[in-house]
């Protein structure tokens, strides 16, 4: 038995020897016993300098009650002995360097005990139901430069390497400044630039609603952060600048700058972007101009736009837009928010954008239908200049605790000038298109939460937009259309759609117990379109002819009086959403042929049911029946030129179309299962639909909308995936299949049936290694088949291989390779390869970072793609931005 203890004793001895030999400094030793002289183990021994609270050294007694306490500096000490169940013993001891002292102690039993102490402490963070208020000062450590650094210090906020902010696991919706927001989801711009020292308090709002009066009524689990600013901060400008310049390639640049200044009264945000690397600069501020409004609140009129028919750059390849967009974009935007009083705020946003785009394509269209066969060749060279001016005013007035008023006014004006050089079947021509869009939009919203669970929102809106288009072609391509005995050598078309809209809506929310929410809306919408177009055949700029059936003078109005109701109901594992819309529609249409008034009543019901059978099986299904009304582009009766060689016209009357949709989805597996699978079916049935009656000639085509009964579309999607633990990779196989049947007329044929089938199978493998390397590889086929009296088939494939490398925390790279294959092209030009590499390096944390991106490294200059329809197979060649390497530096100031 005692043998077992030898090593321990030996170890203890060894420890004592080593400690005493190592620290030949001052020490106090001794033994602690109870009143019966039994040694007390685990007694606390500690010393303090006299008249001090800080403990200088401590130890514990061992089994035999002995202790060794080493003291680093000499002085007058108090030595204390405390042990559970004993009274504290305290001795004075004067210590000199190098000497050894002995201090034994006998501890008396503790007889009086407090049975229980309840301790009250202050909480470092205040949590008030859904708001958490954090005092920035309490957590700042002085080394924070930007807000992001400060937020990193706040418990409960997780900020990822790239700046994504999460509260717990949930990403925040936005980061506001004193309740104001410029950036929505682009909040990193703010948190990475705003000086940390300006922040007073950080407020975290859970279950956030954009309309403060809808809090806890909307079913929201959004989280938002609000930063309040210190009273005394002076506004100063700060921001960042990122400058990219092409190295080892032709002149490419990408410059962006953000400048901000905030104080209690006024906030400014200035943004600039210049680039010629194919990036649409307006994308940078898209979220400011059109904040996402997915909840359908006050959305009346959101979809109302005036229409244009003529477009010269419609066909784009199936590639990243940046690859074919030869551009030269400039954008400057100034945004400001003024706090007039604590209840009144004014937000003013404006931007100016100019862009120049070049675009090239060559195409061979082989037409083959109903015993007709011919080919067209085109070589298209397009140059577009665009200028956009935009202004928006937001006026907010918080009338009281349960009432608010908002007024929004928007104005935008856009001018586009397009010039083309066209070779069509060896005929050279030049087109010019001048377009102007003017848009004015005004909206007023009044919200009243008249009971804690009931809210009423009144919205009124007024929109007016016009989109004139002036087109000119210096060559006349349509000899067949000329009246006999006349001659034309060029052509012009002027068109305009003037749209006016106004509407009112009342939206009522009633939150029931258990979270069930009842909503209904009642409203009135009035839209009026004045659509004019005129085609002119010219000879030496003199109008020769202006055929009546190629012009329009349309007045079209719809008035919709509606009631929409929605109810969400939760019952055990079922969620039911039922919607019904009642519409009373009055329409009036005046064309050159008719003057028609209609009066229709219709109901659109829809129903969604989801059922979580258990953790691994979920089913959801939905059904809806829809009546849709003709729009302005369906009702005009004169042909309008829509491209250099095609004309289109509508039905010439007002129609209503009926359809129904059925959707079923089944999901197997959940996050924890290695195997998971989803399957869904979608069936769409049009009882009536717009098809076309077309006349297709080698030199032009004419399309007329007609109404045909019964079109059906079926779509099925399925995927399975499996995680292989051994290689830490996930395999996913998916396929979707769709089939549609419809009828149309070509060149006075009978109604002919068109069957279209698309099958898209794909497979991909993706790693999830912890190390510095990860891969993602996959391939997808698109198999297309269109059957009329003949069959057109096509198989395309896209294969990709991506590598992600992270060498260090500050240095990472991404390599993307792609291979495109087009089955309908010749062997020598049916494969295209792309390789892009980008890498980032943080030179100085939060201050300077460098990046290098190499695009199109194989220097693929052209890209051919095939396309099939029920009348033709087309091979189109596009020009691609050649290889360039961009070196970029990002600097914060």
């Amino acid at each position: 038995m005692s043998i077992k203890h030898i090593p321990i004793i030996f170890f203890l001895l060894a420890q004592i020897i080593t400690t005493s030999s190592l620290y030949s400094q001052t020490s106090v030793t001794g033994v602690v016993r109870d009143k019966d002289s039994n040694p007390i183990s685990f007694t606390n021994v500690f010393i303090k300098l006299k008249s001090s609270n800080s403990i200088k050294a401590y130890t514990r007694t061992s089994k035999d009650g002995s202790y060794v306490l080493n003291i680093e500096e000499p002085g007058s000490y108090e030595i204390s002995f405390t042990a559970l169940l004993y009274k504290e013993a305290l001795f004075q001891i004067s210590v000199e360097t190098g000497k050894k002292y002995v201090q034994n102690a006998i501890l008396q039993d503790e007889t009086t005990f407090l049975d229980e102490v309840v301790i009250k402490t202050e909480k470092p963070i205040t949590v008030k139901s859904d708001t958490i208020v954090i005092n920035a000062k309490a957590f700042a450590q002085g080394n924070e430069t930007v807000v992001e650094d400060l937020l990193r210090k706040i418990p409960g906020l997780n900020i990822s390497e790239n700046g994504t902010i999460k509260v717990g696991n949930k990403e925040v919706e936005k980061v506001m400044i004193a309740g104001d927001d410029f950036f929505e989801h682009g909040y990193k711009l703010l948190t990475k630039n705003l000086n940390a020292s300006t922040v007073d308090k950080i407020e975290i709002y859970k279950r956030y609603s954009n309309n403060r009066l809808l809090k806890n009524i909307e079913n929201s689990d959004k989280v938002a952060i609000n930063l309040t600013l210190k009273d005394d901060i002076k506004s100063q400008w700060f921001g960042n600048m990122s400058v990219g310049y092409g190295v080892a390639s032709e002149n490419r640049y990408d410059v962006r700058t953000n400048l901000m200044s905030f104080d209690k009264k006024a906030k400014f945000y200035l943004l600039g972007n210049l680039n010629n690397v194919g990036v649409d600069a307006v994308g940078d501020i898209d979220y400011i101009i059109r904040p996402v409004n997915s909840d359908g609140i006050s959305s009346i009129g959101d979809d109302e736009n005036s229409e244009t028919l003529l477009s010269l750059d419609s066909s784009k390849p199936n590639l990243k837009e940046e690859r074919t967009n030869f551009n030269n974009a400039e954008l400057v935007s100034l945004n400001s928010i003024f706090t007039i009083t604590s209840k009144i705020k004014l937000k003013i946003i404006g931007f100016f954008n100019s862009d120049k785009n070049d675009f090239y394509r060559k195409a061979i269209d082989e037409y083959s239908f109903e015993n007709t066969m011919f080919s067209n060749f085109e070589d298209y060279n397009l140059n577009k200049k665009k200028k956009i001016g935009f202004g928006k005013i937001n006026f907010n007035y918080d009338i009281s605790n349960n009432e608010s008023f908002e007024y929004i006014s928007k104005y935008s004006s856009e001018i586009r000038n397009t010039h083309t050089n066209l070779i069509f079947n060896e005929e050279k021509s030049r087109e010019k298109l001048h377009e102007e869009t003017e848009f004015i939009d005004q909206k007023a919203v009044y919200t009243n939460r008249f009971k804690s669970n009931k809210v009423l929102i009144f919205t009124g809106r007024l929109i007016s937009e016009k989109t004139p288009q002036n087109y000119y072609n210096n060559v006349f391509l349509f000899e067949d259309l000329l009246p006999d005995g006349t001659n034309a050598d060029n052509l012009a078309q002027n068109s305009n759609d003037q749209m006016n809209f106004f509407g009112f809506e009342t939206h009522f929310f009633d939150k029931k117990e258990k979270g069930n929410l009842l909503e209904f809306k009642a409203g009135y919408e009035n839209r009026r379109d004045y659509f004019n177009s005129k085609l002119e055949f010219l000879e030496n700029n003199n109008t020769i002819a202006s055929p009546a059936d190629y012009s329009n003078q349309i007045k079209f109005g719809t008035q919709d009086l509606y009631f929409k109701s929605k109810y969400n109901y939760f019952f055990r594992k079922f969620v039911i959403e039922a919607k019904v819309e009642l519409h009373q529609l009055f329409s009036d249409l005046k064309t050159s042929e008719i003057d028609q008034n209609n009066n229709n009543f219709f109901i659109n019901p829809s129903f969604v049911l989801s059922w979580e059978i258990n953790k691994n099986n979920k089913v959801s299904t939905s059904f809806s029946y829809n009546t849709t009304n003709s729009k302005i582009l369906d009702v005009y009766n004169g042909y309008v030129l829509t491209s250099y060689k095609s004309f289109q016209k509508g039905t010439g009357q007002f129609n209503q179309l009926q359809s129904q949709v059925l959707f079923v989805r089944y999901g197997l597996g959940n996050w924890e299962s290695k195997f998971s699978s989803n399957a869904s079916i979608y069936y769409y049935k049009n009882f009536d639909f717009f098809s076309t009656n077309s006349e297709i000639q080698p030199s032009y085509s004419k399309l007329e909308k007609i109404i045909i009964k019964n079109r059906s579309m079926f779509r099925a999607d399925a995927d399975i995936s499996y995680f292989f633990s051994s290689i830490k990779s996930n395999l996913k196989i998916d396929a979707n299949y769709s089939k549609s049947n419809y009828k149309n007329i070509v060149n006075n044929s009978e109604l002919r049936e068109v069957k279209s089938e698309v099958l898209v199978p794909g497979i991909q493998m993706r790693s999830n290694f912890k190390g510095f390397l990860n891969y993602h590889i996959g391939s997808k086929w698109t198999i297309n088949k269109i059957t009329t009296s003949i069959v057109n088939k096509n198989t395309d494939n896209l294969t990709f291989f991506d590598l992600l490398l992270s060498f260090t925390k500050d240095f990472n790279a991404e390599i993307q390779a792609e291979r495109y294959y087009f089955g309908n092209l010749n062997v020598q030009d049916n494969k295209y390869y792309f390789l892009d590499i980008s890498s980032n390096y943080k030179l100085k944390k939060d201050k300077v970072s460098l990046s290098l991106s190499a695009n199109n490294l194989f220097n693929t200059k052209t890209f051919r793609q095939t396309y099939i329809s029920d009348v033709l197979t087309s091979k189109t060649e596009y020009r691609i931005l050649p290889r360039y390497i961009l070196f970029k530096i990002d600097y914060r100031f």
Partner: protein
Amino acid sequence: MKNFALAIILLFVFSANAQVKNVVIEYNLNASNENYVQKKVVTICAKNTSLSKTYANNAKAGIQTDENTNSINVTEKEIDTYESVDLVNNRVIAIDNIKNKNFKITEPLPVMDWKLSKDNEVKKIDTFICSKAFLSFRGRNYIAWYTPYIAVPFGPWKFYGLPGLILEIYDTNNNYHWTVSKISYPLTNNADLTVLDKQNAKDITLKDFVEEIEKQKQIMYARIMKVMPRGTTMEKGTDNRTSVELVYEWEAEKKNK
């Protein structure tokens, strides 16, 4: 031999008689990493052992998807965890779980190299005068307030080794913050270590347990990635540990090499 056994029993009875009382401390744990979850921790201290129980808080468990931020939150259901520090046998036994399966993790007593504050700084928590100490342990830096007047060298969780009971301890990122809420000296309620054996737990070493967690985490992320479109990358730092212990000794060694 028989006598010896008797002597042992007598000794045990004697010592049990002499030291009936333990200290039972209740702490509030603010675990801010997990969406401001508050948990209750109860620590029972004898003079040479401690046993902490952290009560599960399942208010946030479940899966939430958010279409606005395109995010999916998976919060696993929790069960109670235990840590016991045993200064007699120089070991720590913990009960922790992976996917609701309990493991009994035994490790040799880890070194906690406390640095006492040199300042004359004290903090009064209720009536207790507390001194400040610093600890750097497994990837986090802690600030502790302990009182030498309650003479047990323990605190919540695995903390041990200060000359007095820890009444408040938090890491410098404030991700974990324990504050005392109640101290009692009940007559019974011995540090009953058999509770650890009642948890139906499989024995495992700490290293194996940590490796198992990492493995499960990788599987989980792989499954999330499978539904993401091409080019989606996992943000750096997403798979960083958020547990109390961030870096283990064997991992730190590896890094130093």
